[in-house]
């Protein structure tokens, strides 16, 4: 009962957030100077027939509140209109970009979290020592590095050594003898953006892990566990890490918005055809339907990830589960 109530509350907040995001998204593009959406559908790139159809679909001649209701309905059915840059339905542009982004984002996040947890744990263990100083210092340095510049430096290195491709997901115009060859081409393209994004994310995870571990390590139950005869490694594994992972989970979830910022910059630098790169191209082309939809998708994904984090948190912490 208690658990269900907790989850219900979190899901309700997520639902309200998504509603707020949709609303924000709608007004952002309509109330900004010049009403970009109105301008948009006078675009010479579209045929008059397309414009008429869009105008009726999005009710551009209707009062604002009716446009708003239509927008909500269209958002939930995945009808985001037509991209004026690609002249395709927005959903068809968006979907492959999302997949491409995941190919980069998932491994980068997993790697960064694993490395961050490992390094943060080691630093906390040796707190005050040289290893702690090096790890903390380099973590802070890493999240001070501008993502796009780090990417640029890696590109310089790759160009000088001539080893790795620096742009896109696949070699342009390549014909692959086998799926395996295609996959290895993908991997070689993935390496540089993956390193960039992992390094950028790693720093913050390491510092968060270290600080929450140090907080936990001074708790009374750690001293008590040691007084029962537990050795340091055991205390760390069995008592400190589970308790320190709780703030870690919350902070990772809350920071996903920032994480995505790093992803946009990485994708732009390496022309990785993901959703961040799509956003960049759409800005340059003033392709507002795509921007509107991309923002919505990214924001909803982050809210959903937060709900997952809450679920995970409640699985670890009995204080949430019971009473």
């Amino acid at each position, binding site marked *: *009962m*208690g*658990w269900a*109530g*907790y989850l219900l509350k979190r899901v309700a907040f997520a639902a309200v957030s998504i509603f707020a995001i949709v609303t924000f998204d709608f007004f952002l593009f309509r109330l900004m100077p010049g009403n970009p959406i109105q301008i948009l559908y006078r675009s010479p790139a579209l045929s008059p027939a397309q414009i008429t159809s869009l105008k009726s679909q999005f009710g551009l001649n209707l009062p604002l509140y009716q446009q708003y209701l239509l927008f909500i309905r269209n958002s939930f059915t995945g009808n985001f209109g037509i991209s004026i840059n690609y002249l395709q339905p927005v959903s068809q542009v968006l979907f492959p970009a999302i997949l491409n982004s995941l190919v980069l984002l998932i491994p980068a996040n997993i790697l960064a979290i694993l490395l961050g947890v490992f390094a943060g744990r080691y630093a906390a263990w040796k707190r005050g020592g040289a290893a702690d100083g090096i790890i903390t210092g380099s973590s802070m340095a890493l999240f001070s590095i501008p993502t796009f510049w780090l990417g640029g430096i890696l590109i310089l290195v790759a160009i000088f050594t001539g080893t790795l491709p620096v742009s896109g997901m696949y070699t342009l115009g390549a014909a692959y003898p086998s799926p395996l060859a295609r996959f290895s081409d993908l991997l070689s393209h993935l390496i540089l953006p993956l390193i960039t994004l992992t390094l950028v994310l790693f720093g913050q995870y390491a510092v968060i892990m270290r600080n929450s571990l140090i907080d936990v390590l001074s708790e009374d139950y750690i001293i008590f566990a040691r007084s029962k005869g537990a050795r340091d490694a055991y205390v760390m594994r069995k008592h400190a890490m589970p308790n320190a992972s709780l703030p870690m989970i919350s902070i990772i979830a809350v920071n996903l918005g920032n994480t995505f910022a790093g992803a946009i910059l990485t994708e732009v630098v390496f022309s990785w055809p993901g959703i961040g790169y799509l956003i960049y191209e759409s800005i340059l082309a003033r392709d507002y339907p795509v921007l509107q939809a991309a923002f919505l998708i990214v924001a909803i994904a982050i809210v959903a990830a937060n709900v997952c984090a809450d679920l995970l948190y409640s699985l670890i912490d009995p204080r*949430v589960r*019971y*009473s």
Partner: protein
Amino acid sequence: MEILKLENLEKHFEVHSRSRVRRNLIRAVDGVSLAIPEGEIHSIVGESGSGKTTLGRMVAGLLEPTSGSVVLGGVDMFRSGRGEIRNLRKSIQIIFQDPYASLNPRFTVRQILEEPLRLNRLPVQEGDLLDTLRQVGLTPPEDFTGRYPHELSGGQRQRVAIARAMIVRPRFIVADEPVSMLDASMRGSFLQLILSLRKRDGITMMMITHDISIAHYVSDRISIFYRGKVVEQGRADDVVLNPAHPYTRALIESVPSFSRGDSEGSRHPEVPSDVPDPATGCMFRNRCPKAMVACEAVPGATEIAPAHFVSCHLYGGTGVK
């Protein structure tokens, strides 16, 4: 003539535990009536969670009661004109438990003492300030006015806190566990300070404490508090030497003393500690060695000796509610 009167004072909190949809009602203070005559020290004795601190905060005007009234010198603290309430707040001062948290770390002792004067639009006079410091035993006072709290010991901080309360010449002081965080060797002199201030300035005080020995030492009357209710009330000697309520007895039996040095063996209060509270009736009955069927009703107060009241069915307390 009583100066402070509490009439059927109640404070209920709604607790939403963060997961549960159902709301729990906590009756932190549940129908307390008492009167404190001018010049008396009245102690409220209870364990943590008994609602004694909530009571003190209501008396100091920091918390609005759910129902009932706090009347000081004929003025109702929560149902009077603004001006009267302002005046009343000036007349009641509070001393807190934690000497480390009760002083703003960024104020000097001088600023701490000037604050209640300024807020109550009273004149700030150097002589008054130094006198008050001297009265609470911080001598020479000139040495203390410029100091910050972190430059004082725990005992000195608590003296500053009492000086802050005294400087506006209040008619009534609420002291919430004023000595519980002081070392034993500091505690005695602090209690003596309270007694001497009473003797000289005739202040009236409500002292909230968990320690019945301290209550006995400083106060004229004692109220024993259990789960928001006064279960026993009387002159300090009567309550301590002839305790009537089973809870009071357990409390007194639990007070450690040096008598075991004479090897008579330790006492065992037969009161279990970790028992859930009953939903109705006498709140102590699940722990009470003398519980009976009648205890399912809430006991009323009985005067078992002159001015000695007990709320317990053992003494024929008639059921109410």
